[in-house]
């Protein structure tokens, strides 16, 4: 039983990161129907930027996070303006391929600037942690759980109450109608990219603090894919919940069934779930008219 609790708790700790990353994917997909394959790379880029900032100025963790939120919003807007907006009106698949090209470019740029050696993101919370009975959690992991909760709450308030959020939901429901109702759809797209980049930035800083930085940090973006698919590509909150589910599942399968299952158990699960529910657990089925 203790083993089970240990696996579950550490699964939740990694799962909240998947959840955060997944929220970024889902938000962009919801608003623009594009899967942003560069999401993991944007996350990596911002965590490396955080490294540069943290090593030039000594900032407390929250200060660093705030600066990174600001920077990542700008990164998101720039990427949207330079790479994504020119693709408006083209096939969705073309835009997806643009994000793949962008991903390749960001990976190269990060190694060109910061080198290929693993780095540590210096923050003031460092190795401190809290012990709950037999389970030890780093402060940064606790912050991650708190930040996921905060992001989910923030997104809910934003989508439910703010003018922009309502416009975003309208655009997601039917783009053309939203446009006819006077919503500035390109503006909505830009905001969606900015928010997704902010969430990517938060998860990047957390990942950098918990696991350190390396040129393969982007693979975390790949690892979070099962979470988004399980939740349904267009469900922001579904992504958060299924991120935790996938994290726990990965740990349990590794712990009880076999070595190495951690890498693929998420993908195996989505294969099964998609057969039964092709739009994920919380996704909206698309009604097609011919």
């Amino acid at each position, binding site marked *: 039983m203790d083993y089970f609790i240990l696996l579950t708790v550490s699964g939740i700790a990694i799962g909240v990161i998947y959840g955060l990353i997944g929220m970024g994917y889902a938000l962009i997909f919801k608003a623009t129907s594009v*899967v942003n394959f560069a999401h993991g790379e944007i996350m990596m880029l911002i965590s490396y930027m955080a490294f540069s900032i943290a090593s030039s100025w000594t900032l407390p963790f929250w200060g660093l996070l705030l600066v990174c939120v600001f920077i990542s919003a700008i990164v998101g807007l720039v990427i949207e303006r330079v790479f994504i907006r020119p693709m408006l009106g083209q096939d969705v698949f073309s835009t997806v391929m643009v994000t793949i*090209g962008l991903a390749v470019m960001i990976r*190269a740029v990060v190694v060109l600037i910061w080198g290929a050696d693993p780095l540590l993101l210096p923050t003031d919370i460092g190795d401190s942690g809290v012990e709950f009975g037999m389970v030890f959690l780093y402060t940064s992991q606790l912050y991650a759980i708190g930040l996921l909760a905060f992001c989910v709450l923030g997104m809910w308030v934003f989508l439910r109450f703010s003018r922009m959020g309502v416009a975003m939901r309208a655009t997601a429901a039917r783009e053309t109608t939203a446009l006819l109702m006077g919503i500035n759809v390109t503006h909505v797209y830009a905001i969606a990219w900015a928010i997704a980049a902010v969430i990517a930035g938060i998860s990047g800083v957390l990942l950098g603090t918990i696991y350190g930085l390396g040129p393969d940090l982007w693979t975390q973006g790949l690892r979070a894919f099962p979470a988004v698919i399980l939740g349904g590509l267009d469900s922001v909150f579904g992504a958060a919940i299924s991120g935790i589910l996938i994290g726990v599942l990965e740990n349990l399968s590794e712990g009880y069934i076999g070595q190495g299952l951690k*890498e693929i158990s998420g993908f195996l699960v989505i294969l099964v779930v*998609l057969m039964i529910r092709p739009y994920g657990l919380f996704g909206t089925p698309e009604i097609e008219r011919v």
Partner: protein
Amino acid sequence: MRTGVFEESYSELISLYRNPTQTYWTVALVLAALVAPLLLTNHLTSLVNGMMIAAVGVIGLNLLTGTTGLISFGQAGFLAVGAYTAAVLSADYGMPLWLCLPASGLMAAAFGLIVGIPSLRLKGLYLAITTMAFTIIITHIILSAEDITHGSSGISTPKPAIFGVELATDKSFYYLILAILTLAILGSANIKRSRIGRAFLAIREQDIAARVMGVPVARYKLYAFVVSSFYVGVAGALMAYHIRFVNVDSFSLVISIEAVSMIIVGGLGSTAGAVIGVVFVLGLAEVLNYVIGSMGGTLGSVSVLELKGFIYGLTIVLFLRFEPEGLMGIYREFKNRWVNWPFRY
């Protein structure tokens, strides 16, 4: 003056060659391909071999993604299945090449069926990510099934030989690959002009409409998966013989993404486009190698790789931005200008 190509009957519409000029050019191309290795250096022959092998696989992917519209990032997985089948059969069981090639194709086709069935209900990006999951799972299975696949240490394949004739050099292997590529191109072209190919196109345009018009969508989607993965499996087997060593590292997701970018750069849905895309993308890598190499040791080895990656990413982005029809689109435009000059159309 020729003012255009006019098809006046259905048989003309689906004929392999639309006019005599095309036939002449095809003959010229085949002759050129036959004498090419006599003129090329060993290094270049090896490069061309790699391109032709990739082309076999990418033509297969094009049938699935370009013609049927099912986006697949499973290319690396099917390549791995094909390559490992060939490597295991030839190295551990001593099977000859002429048996290994179809066996790899069939094995990959079987896996295509396995991936295809759960994918029947999925569309668009859901499908893309599921096929990506397949690639990740396959590499994991290969790594863990050490008894058969030798795990992470990889397998060395014997020299390719066909009916007792050893194809030891790249130049002799060239002709075998050329023959298979020709078969692949003919096969793809014939599928496209047949009933099956038209069903594929109908599914790409709008699968519900296709179903309403009497196309059994599920069956044809599975056909597309099976045929495409057969191609890719054969390409994987050839790859195993070409590199003479298979290892899981050669089949990362990057290969899948590269393959999709090749059909996009070439032009979605066109067999010629697939081949041109392969030549362009692999050629670009080679040219970059040469250029950066001739610039001397001012750059570290890490940054050479990264610089190549950056330019590669940029090429994909620029192509999609400015020429979404791909190189075939440019060619068509140029041809129209040439034929109609001095008129616009």
